[in-house]
């Protein structure tokens, strides 16, 4: 991703994180601006997973709030030896504030029946076909055989351990997920 591309992406997601705060946080994450952007996105995604797995509502907002607070601490000159650990501490505080583990099964059912969601599913299917077709032949073959064949036999055929096969397949799956998400968001 280019630097400008990174910044545009960050700009969409950082909400009320002001320019100065964002600069300070990016600098603390990594001196190289482009790598810092990637690290920021990765940290944000990890935070969303944390809030989601902890059953918090509005995980995106909570992730942005965490990053805002983290940026503020960096700007204030707080000594932070481990940004990940510090971010986790902020996230834990936010979860306590949020009164976590609120779930509403009913709203999930209603949301799933929403029209936008249906469109997204159809788009996913088309995007999946395109992304599978765009994979290099060897990677496509591996992921297809991984889901179809006996995995121990397949690992033997490739001359690798079952665990190594699993790692390879899951990396290709992750690649597909990114491709499908990108195509669906672009359409």
């Amino acid at each position, binding site marked *: 991703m280019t630097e400008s591309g990174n910044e545009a992406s960050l700009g969409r997601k950082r909400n009320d994180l002001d320019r100065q705060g964002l600069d300070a946080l990016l600098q603390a994450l990594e001196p190289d601006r482009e790598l810092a952007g990637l690290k920021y996105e990765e940290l944000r995604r*990890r935070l*969303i*997973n*944390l809030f*989601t*797995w*902890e*059953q918090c*509502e509005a*995980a*995106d907002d909570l992730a942005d709030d965490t990053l805002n607070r983290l940026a503020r601490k960096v700007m204030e000159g707080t000594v932070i030896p*481990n940004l*990940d*650990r510090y*971010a*986790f501490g902020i*996230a*834990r505080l936010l979860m306590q504030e949020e009164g976590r583990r609120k*779930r509403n*099964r009913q709203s*999930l*059912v209603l*949301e*799933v*029946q929403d*029209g936008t*969601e*249906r*469109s*997204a*599913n*159809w*788009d*996913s*299917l088309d*995007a*999946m*076909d395109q992304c*599978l077709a765009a994979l290099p032949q060897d990677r496509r073959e591996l*992921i*297809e055989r991984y*889901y*179809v064949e006996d995995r121990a036999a397949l690992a033997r055929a490739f001359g690798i351990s079952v665990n190594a096969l*699993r*790692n390879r397949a*899951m990396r290709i*799956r*992750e690649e*597909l*997920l990114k491709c*499908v*998400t990108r195509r669906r968001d672009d359409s």
Partner: protein
Amino acid sequence: MVNRDDMIAYLLHQMPETERAAFAERWFTEPDLYERLQMTEAELLDDCARGKVSRGQRRLIEQYLLGSEFQRRKMDFAAALQSAIPSPRTSRVPWWAVAAAALVASIGVSLWLGIENRRLQTEVASIQPAAQRVADGVYAVAIPSQTLRSAAAENSIRLPAGIQILRLELELPPGGDRGVYSATLLAGSRAVWNEGPFYPESRGTASVATIWIPASAAILGPGEHAVRLDASGSPSAYYRFTISR
């Protein structure tokens, strides 16, 4: 060393609270563990989309892993991947088939190829949707689960004149009967009709979801369509077909 069961216990909230808090901090600060946790979640969702989890585990997945748009997109991806690369059916190969294969092999590769070619042709023919007019104004089409991966062109349905209802009998993927279902008909990117809740019925070793779609031109116009089956609120299979009149 954290094993896969521990990670599943974390994701499905089956871990004591004190352990859970410590584990969360650990994965958050250890990139390798985070990667393995993501892989475990992906496999759980894959298994769920492929009907390979128990009823109880599926309930936990729905309760703890599908509670947000962010998570449902992951499940949506797993369902699309299942549709593109479906798991094979498990079937027992009879002894005589093994013997026949050995005999064929001994006769010669070219003969075997000829037989195999014919078998494949028969198989392709057998997965075409079986269609018949079952009553006045009702046209029934059965779509087997093997065709989940197929292009819509392979499931071509020509609606005769005067048909008012299309009855689709959708064979569920193996292990796919998971309680309450709903169905949504998609035309392009539009949802044009839905039905549910309903329960699939057992037919021999398979489970079949039967849906009744009004055959009006507004709903079933010529072109590509797909039916998405949702099991307990999450996508479980897509059936693609082309309508012509």
